[in-house]
């Protein structure tokens, strides 16, 4: 393809008008004016993202179903799952803090994984899911509010604070959260919204022809 025919693109951070270039696998195109990353070329993005999203969904369920940490002090103890922790805090009257934790570490990650699976599973099977645009819009809007990795660091800081006064019983969910954090990071780097749009363009053009 000649340079003239390649599609136009505008840098989202400085609005420089550019033409797209061909990228090598795993390459990224950066804006020559402000240095923002414009788009990436992730080989096999849909398959890999689907595999990672499925694995992440499984660990998400485990991480939410089992207690994260248990503590023990002279025979008395307590252990909580994430949802219980949010619920307890809500009952203590700290609605805003409980709400924030619920949204950022339970609701948004679940929604994100659910929407990704809704998009990727049909695409993997060669079909186009209904309502790609609203789903992509929603995914983009909620993305900054999924904070599993920050919550993981929160668990570690809590552990250090607790270990001085209590006997700690690490729960299954503790390990699951660790693995979930890694899987979500890998998913974020492999998922490439651009591939979804290109796939959609291809299918649409196919219908027109």
């Amino acid at each position: 393809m000649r340079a003239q025919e390649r599609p136009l693109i505008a840098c989202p951070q400085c609005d420089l008008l550019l033409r797209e270039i061909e990228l090598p696998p795993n390459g990224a195109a950066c804006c020559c004016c402000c240095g923002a990353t414009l788009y990436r070329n992730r080989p096999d993005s849909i398959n890999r993202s689907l595999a990672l999203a499925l694995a992440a969904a499984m660990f998400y369920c485990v991480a939410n179903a089992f207690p994260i940490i248990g503590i023990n002090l002279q025979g008395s103890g307590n252990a909580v799952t994430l949802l219980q922790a949010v619920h307890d805090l809500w009952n203590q009257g700290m609605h805003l803090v409980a709400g924030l934790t619920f949204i950022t570490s339970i609701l948004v990650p679940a929604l994100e994984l659910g929407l990704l699976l809704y998009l990727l599973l049909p695409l993997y099977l060669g079909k186009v899911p209904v309502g790609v645009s609203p789903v992509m819009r929603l995914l983009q809007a909620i993305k900054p509010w999924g904070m599993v990795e920050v919550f993981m660091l929160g668990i570690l800081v809590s552990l250090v604070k607790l270990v001085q006064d209590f006997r700690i019983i690490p729960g299954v969910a503790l390990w699951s959260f660790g693995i979930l954090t890694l899987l979500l990071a890998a998913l974020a780097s492999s998922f490439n919204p651009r591939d979804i749009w290109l796939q959609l363009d291809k299918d649409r053009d196919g219908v027109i022809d």
Partner: protein
Amino acid sequence: MDWPGISAASQGYWSCHVCDLVSRPEPTDPQPRCPRCGTRLHQRRPDSLQRCWALLIASYIMYIPANLMIMMETGTLISYREDTIMSGVIHLWQSGNPGIAVIVFVASILVPLFKLLVLTLLLLSVRRGSTWKIRTRIQLYRIVELVGRWSMLDIFVLTILAALVQIQSMATVRAGTASIAFGMVVVLTMFAAMVFDPRLMWDQLRKRTGHE
């Protein structure tokens, strides 16, 4: 920096913030939509500066109670203590966890302050039409977007501790009022960074250098 290139806006092109498609809507269209994904198009984020100022001022106001009021109450059979964010960090340091103390200090004190100051600097520089160190400023903006979420750390620690440490009268942890203000600071500054449009800085540069 004297050649910032040609902006899409100056050529009548609008880019979609969801699917990145660049299109050229009819100039008469009052509410252009992206031809690929149907998203409402904006050349610049709507009312970027006003919204950002409003959120930023609200964050500054909340930042004061967040730092002065009690973040966490810890009670055991023999002791009771109330900690603000800073006294909690100092307590961590003194009780032999300097590493964790530094992490909490960075996430809860440095990052929110850094966000407030950088956003103020960005807003003031756009308002003054400044072209000063534009590359440094855009890098600061990216750092603010990247690190903002990590301030939530203290909120999560509080959730875990306040829910877990409830062993009759032997040990209890309660969240203090500062946690509400602190949570507001984190959320408001995240929204402020989202509504700020970095393209406005480059528009100033293009205007100054007379390219547009």
